[in-house]
């Protein structure tokens, strides 16, 4: 699917996809100076760029370098538009994301976060080595639509399996749990006791898009 791009946003989308964060920042400032609202820059600029990247990133051509450069450019624009952080009322939905206790590798989590922010979601990042209880507390406090867990190493799997029961115990059984990362994606949703296992950050974002639309 090719997303339609508003002509005013062409340049922004182009430099975002090139991963040129300085040019993206300059272009966002130019658009703001023209009186274009931050909301529109996000929905018609950032989200359009993320859609293009999503279309391009099959499993075979998904690489961290390209994603990180686009992610850095997107973050620079978001920080410019919302210096105090994305307000809860602006974000379409909130997701809580963490690398769970026992795993200190957070690159996969950071990539997923960048993709979701680029799509206009509000993402609460709990960092790495995060206890399940902290994740559940944040999901409740932030009214999260889903919680996302990333894992590079297999010993973290028992922690992942605890998330859904811990949410249910708090009366939050309706919150979906999505897993991703090199170790977790070799497993299945059933084995991990989660709702979905994402092959890539974009695959996970697509599931979340459907969830938000009520289609998942």
């Amino acid at each position, binding site marked *: 699917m090719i997303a339609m791009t508003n002509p005013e946003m062409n340049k922004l989308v182009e430099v975002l996809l090139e991963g040129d964060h300085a040019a993206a920042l300059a272009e966002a400032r130019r658009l703001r100076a023209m009186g274009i609202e931050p909301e529109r820059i996000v929905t018609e600029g950032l989200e359009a760029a993320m859609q293009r990247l999503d279309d391009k990133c099959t*499993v*075979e051509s998904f690489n*961290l*370098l390209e994603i*990180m*450069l686009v992610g850095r450019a997107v973050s620079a624009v978001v920080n410019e538009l919302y210096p105090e952080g994305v307000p809860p009322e602006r974000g379409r939905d909130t997701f809580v994301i963490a690398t769970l206790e026992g795993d200190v590798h957070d690159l996969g989590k950071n990539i997923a976060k960048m993709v979701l922010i680029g799509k206009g979601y509000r993402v609460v990042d709990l960092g790495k080595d995060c206890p399940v209880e902290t994740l559940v507390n944040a999901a409740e406090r932030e009214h999260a639509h889903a919680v996302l867990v990333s894992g590079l*190493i*297999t*010993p973290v799997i028992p922690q992942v399996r605890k998330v859904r029961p811990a949410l249910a115990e708090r009366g939050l059984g309706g919150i979906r749990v999505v897993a991703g990362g090199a170790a977790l994606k*070799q497993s299945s949703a059933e084995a991990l006791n989660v709702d979905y296992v994402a092959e890539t950050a974009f695959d996970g974002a697509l599931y979340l898009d459907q969830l938000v639309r009520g289609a998942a």
Partner: protein
Amino acid sequence: MNSLERIKAAISFAPADRTPAVPQLFGHAAALAGVALKDYLRDGGLLARCQIEARERYGHDIVFAFMDLCVETEAAGSILQYRENQYPDVASYVLAPDSDVSALAVPDPATAGRMPELLRAAGILRSELGDTVLVAGCVAGPMTLATQLLGIEAALYLAADDPARFERILDFSAAVAIRYGIAQIEAGAHLPIVFDPAASPAVVPPQFFRELLLPRLQRVFSAFRQAGALANWLNIAGPTGTILPYYPEAGVDIANFDYYVEPQRARELLPDTCLDGNMKSLIFVEASPDEVAAAASRLVSEFAGRGGFLLSSGCEIPPEAKPENIAAMLAACRGA
């Protein structure tokens, strides 16, 4: 036919009594012996003993003088954080993006960090096993060491923002790999495997591999061959289908492939190169012995007519893997 002869036969596509089995058993050897990983990773004598015991138990065809992919960066000056039963990670990187890499000295394997312990392990393994079993040393490939010197995010941003500076770091990393790998050969390893997970197309695009990494890998493998390595072995996990065709140009004799790449595709991409792979690591933790045996048998059958194959996992078999699953892999290999 002993294990080393079996592997040599596979490398040269000659007939063998069975498919060689080279499961990537590193920290699992410690778990099997009831030894804390943090001790195994810092004591060459202990590492060698655990590797020999694991090999006696399973009967596979290789032992690994391998600690983790942080040995080189620690030797160069990074500070690691060790945990009881996990691999260490870098708490403080020796390089910042604006650092001058020329201020760093290539570590001396005889004295720097854990390198001397690793050399001791290689020496013990070779003196105990002689030329019956392949003794594999291991080095971090240039891209992986660059990411371990800077942190992966800083390294990737630097590669985009200041390619010339990043290339100097890659050159330093290649020099570290060459010096450390040759020291392993001199200590007794038949060959050093080059592990370069950060060179995977999951991390950098194929063009980056071809333009920046291939020339450094050529340099590393050429040096190993001159130093007497039995063969050149490159291990990059993940979806490597787009870079496998460059391996012969890099001087690779044995190419690891992960579960992302179908065996048939790997065969087509590298018709004249010995392959090793590609069982999923996680099945050794989660599946039953029957499922592991079936997966192993499928691969052995797939390559039966071709040769040039070492049965392995595509990536490390996790330390907490079930021993009965590794035994099932070996049994399938023996046709039991």
